Every structure is written in structure tokens, then in C-alpha cells.
């Protein structure tokens, strides 16, 4: 696998406020990456920097081995779709698709038209008069049909309802299998996208606090539930990411359990199940943001 995006010690500050703080990461060719974090964590700023929409305060960004900022050769390989992207006042969906067809070398018009029908975007209504969900669907259609070698999707589906989002995830995965490319998805709806992602970056207060392969991450922690006393005895020696006590019952998210540990705890009457990506990430973001978690 070869790296297509490399970010080294990247910082972006706005009048004293640091939106992205000493971020370093690498993204390899052809994969679905998740950039996860709470609202205001720095996801959009980081994506804007990678797409050349902003200039970094310090640090380096390399896309296909060159800086993306004002680099036509690099930018021709990228699509950056944001939920907040506003189109021309008098555009209808047809105008947006026509502009995208001109802009993107790999544009698939038949696929775009089928997506417009699938997401039930009104063709005769002005884009500015579409509902938030429909406007999100416009971004999704462009992002998918562009088939850009690097597709960055900054929560474009956030205004869509649950059914439309499920359609989006299914279509994204099916299209990715047919046309592999590098896709970076930012979201705070972690559980919804968990099955799509091959690798996750978790950003919190501008810093990357987790950089891990999703499979490794899933196997790295478990949720243990039982009486407070037995749970306390059982988890001694493990790293506790999160702990919650309700009455006499306790629930912990513990890191570092092996299969034999899980079997031993289960035989002792405790409920043990793998932690979901969302549970893990919530645990991590509750920690001190200066602690970057390493997952083997």
C-alpha cells in the first residue's frame, strides 16, 4: 500500500485559538477512513487543510507527494464535499450535476442520475429551496458520482434521515468495492459508520488522540458487566477506559483483555462483550486529550 496523504506536525490557529494542533497522520491509497470526533473537535479544519481550502499555520501536508495548496495537478484528483456547501442561488440539481460533470474527470452521469432518483431529490426545485436533507443528498450524489481518487466527505449526509443515511452507507460501500478509491469520511455518528471504516482517526480539541485500524481497535477492548464487587476483582490489572456504576451493578470498558481472560470472566458469571467503536471512542475522548492511545 502506498501513502496518498501525509500530514506532519500540522497546526492551524485562528487569532490565538488552535483548531488543529500538531497533527500527524498518513492515509494510504484505496481505503475508507473515518475522521471521528465531537462537534468543534477540528475535523472540518483538518479536512479543509488537506483539500487546500486553508493555509496551515505550521506543518506540512503532502498529497500525492506535493502540497495541495494551489496545486492544480493534485486538486484535480480530489473532491471535498461539505454539508455546509452552498451552491449558486439559481441552480437546480441539473445545474449542479452539469458543473460536476465538467469538473470531475471520472464523473459517472448515469450513476448520478440514478442517485438523484434514489434520494428523491426534486429536479425542478431550486437547490436553495431544498430541505436540509435533500441538500445533504445533493452533496452525497456529487461526492459519490465524482469517483475522485481522493474523496473527502465532511458530514454531507448529516441532514439526511436514518433511512436515507442507510441508503448512503450501502451505496458508498457497493460503489467503493466496484471502484476502489481513497475515501475520508468525517462524522460524529460513529456506530452508523463503524462497519464501513477500515481505519479511524479520532480528533479531540484539535489533536489526534486515536489512530488505529478498525479491526485492531474492535478487538482491543471489552465491556464487562456484573456486580460491582465481582467486576472490581475481575478487571484488576487491566486498563479501564470507562466505568459506570448503577446501584449494585457495574459496567466497565477495559482494554487489553485476551480471549482466555474473557472466557475466565464469563465463567465467573460476568457478562463480557466486545466494545463497540462508539464506546471505545467515547472512552478515549473522555481521557486527557494529550494522551494518544496506541493500538497494536
Amino acid at each position, binding site marked *: 500500500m502506498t501513502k496518498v496523504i501525509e500530514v506532519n506536525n500540522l497546526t492551524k490557529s485562528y487569532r490565538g485559538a488552535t483548531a488543529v494542533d500538531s497533527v500527524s497522520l498518513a492515509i494510504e491509497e484505496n481505503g475508507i477512513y473515518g475522521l471521528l470526533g465531537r462537534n468543534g473537535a477540528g475535523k472540518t479544519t483538518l479536512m479543509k487543510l488537506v483539500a487546500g481550502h486553508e493555509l496551515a499555520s505550521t506543518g506540512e501536508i503532502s498529497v500525492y507527494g506535493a502540497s495541495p495548496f494551489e496545486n492544480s495537478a493534485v486538486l484535480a484528483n480530489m473532491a471535498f464535499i461539505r454539508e455546509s456547501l452552498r451552491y449558486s442561488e439559481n441552480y437546480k440539481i441539473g445545474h449542479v450535476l452539469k*458543473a460536476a460533470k465538467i469538473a470531475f474527470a471520472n464523473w459517472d452521469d448515469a450513476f448520478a442520475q440514478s442517485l438523484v432518483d434514489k434520494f428523491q431529490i426534486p429536479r425542478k426545485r431550486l437547490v436553495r429551496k431544498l430541505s436540509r436533507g435533500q441538500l445533504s443528498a445533493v452533496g452525497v450524489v456529487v461526492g459519490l458520482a465524482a469517483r475522485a481518487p481522493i474523496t473527502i466527505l465532511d458530514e454531507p449526509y448529516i441532514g439526511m434521515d436514518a433511512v436515507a443515511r442507510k441508503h448512503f452507507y450501502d451505496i458508498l460501500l457497493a460503489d467503493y468495492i466496484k471502484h476502489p478509491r481513497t475515501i475520508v469520511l468525517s462524522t460524529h455518528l460513529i456506530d452508523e459508520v463503524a462497519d464501513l471504516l477500515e481505519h479511524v482517526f479520532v480528533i479531540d480539541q484539535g489533536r489526534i488522540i486515536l489512530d488505529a485500524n478498525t479491526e485492531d481497535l474492535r478487538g482491543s477492548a471489552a465491556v464487562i458487566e456484573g456486580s460491582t464487587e465481582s467486576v472490581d476483582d475481575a478487571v484488576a490489572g487491566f486498563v479501564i477506559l470507562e466505568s459506570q456504576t448503577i446501584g449494585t451493578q457495574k459496567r466497565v470498558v477495559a482494554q487489553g483483555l485476551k480471549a482466555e481472560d474473557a472466557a475466565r470472566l464469563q465463567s465467573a458469571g460476568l457478562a463480557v462483550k466486545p466494545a463497540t467503536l462508539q464506546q471505545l471512542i467515547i472512552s478515549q475522548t473522555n481521557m486527557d486529550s494529550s494522551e494518544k492511545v496506541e493500538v497494536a
Partner: protein
Amino acid sequence: MTTLPIQQQTLVQRLWKVVGINVVRPWVLVLPLVIMTALFLVTGILSWLTIAFVPADGQLWFSPEFFLIIFLFLTANQTIYHEYAVSLSFGISRSDFYFGSLLNFALQSIWYAVVCLSIAAVTGSFFLNEFSGVGVTNFVSLIVLFIGTQALAASTTAIYLRWGKPGMLTFFGGLALVLVALPVLAVSDLGSELPTLNSETLTMLETNVIGSAVALILITLGYLIIRKASVR
């Protein structure tokens, strides 16, 4: 690092791509003609009705050409403002977007200059103020006027894109100061020593050269401003 999957296009291809995006709604090219025709007819009817009040030289102060200049300013402003974020999101660089849009403005200027001169060839000064016949100098003069108008719109919009409302307030504040200072300067002793620039002392050629220089300065300033503008 892997090599680029999509190879870079030539400069002309890249700029032409932006022109295509600019005119995704071709109606923007037709609308001014429709309104100009309507205004032309209305102006004609009104002047015919009030013929006794029209000055002896037959010159009208408000003509379709005047409307066209306002229209071009507004459409250039809207093009730069609305299509900047979309174009950058669609993988186009700022430079390509800016110069591609200017190529579009230049082509539109030529198109409207042809239209204006064609109508004026039939109607004379009834359509164009200061009309002195169909010729290369007049043709160039109209193109310079139209491009200059659009360059002004592009550069002022670039200020907004780069610095937002504070930038616009500073710009218009500065402009207001200049507009106040100029008449003061003109009546002062210093003003009397400056060379006089007005349409009566300048030839059409000189006007075109000065107009082109102003347009070029505006285009350059616009580029310097927009090349580091963030996408909001």
C-alpha cells in the same frame, strides 16, 4: 507516495473547464439581451413621447448600455461569490477559478460589444451614449469598459472572500475617503497643477489605454487577494 491517477490538464483546458461551470445556466447569457431589448423599446417609446424634452443633440442619459454595465457588475460579483466554494470543492485551484472566470468575462465582453455595436449601427446614438460610429476603436472601447466593470466586481468580491465584512467596510471606507478627497484636491492649488483627465481632452485611444491599464491593475489585485482566501 503513489503517482497521480488523473493527470493534469493543460492551462487552456483548466480555464475552459471553469468557463463551462460559469455558464452552466446559459440563461445568464440571454437574460441581459432580453432586458436590453425591453429597455431599448421602453426608452424609445418614452423618448418618442417626450421628444420635445430631449436635448438638441438627441443624447439620452439613460441607455440600455448603462443597464448592461450594472448587469455585468452584478453577474461577475455573483459568479465569483457563489461559485468560488463550489469550484474549489470540485477540485479546481483558486488561480484556475479566478482566471477561468475572467476568461468567461472577457468572452462575454466581446459578445456584448458585438451586440451593442450591431444595434448602434442601426440606431446610432439612440442606443449608445457617445456613439461615434462602428469601428475598431469603439469596439475595443466597449470591451475595455465591460472587462473593467467585471474586473472591478471580481476584485471587490475577492476582498469579501478573503476578509469578509471587515474587509468590505475598510474597502468602502477607503473608497469614500478618496471620493471626498478628489473634489477637494481638484479645487486646491495642488489640483490645479495636475494634468487634466477628462473625455474632452483624451482621445479614444488614450482612454482605451488608460482603461486597459486600470482593468489590468484590478485583475492583478483581485488575484493577489483571492489566492489566499479561505473557503467559508
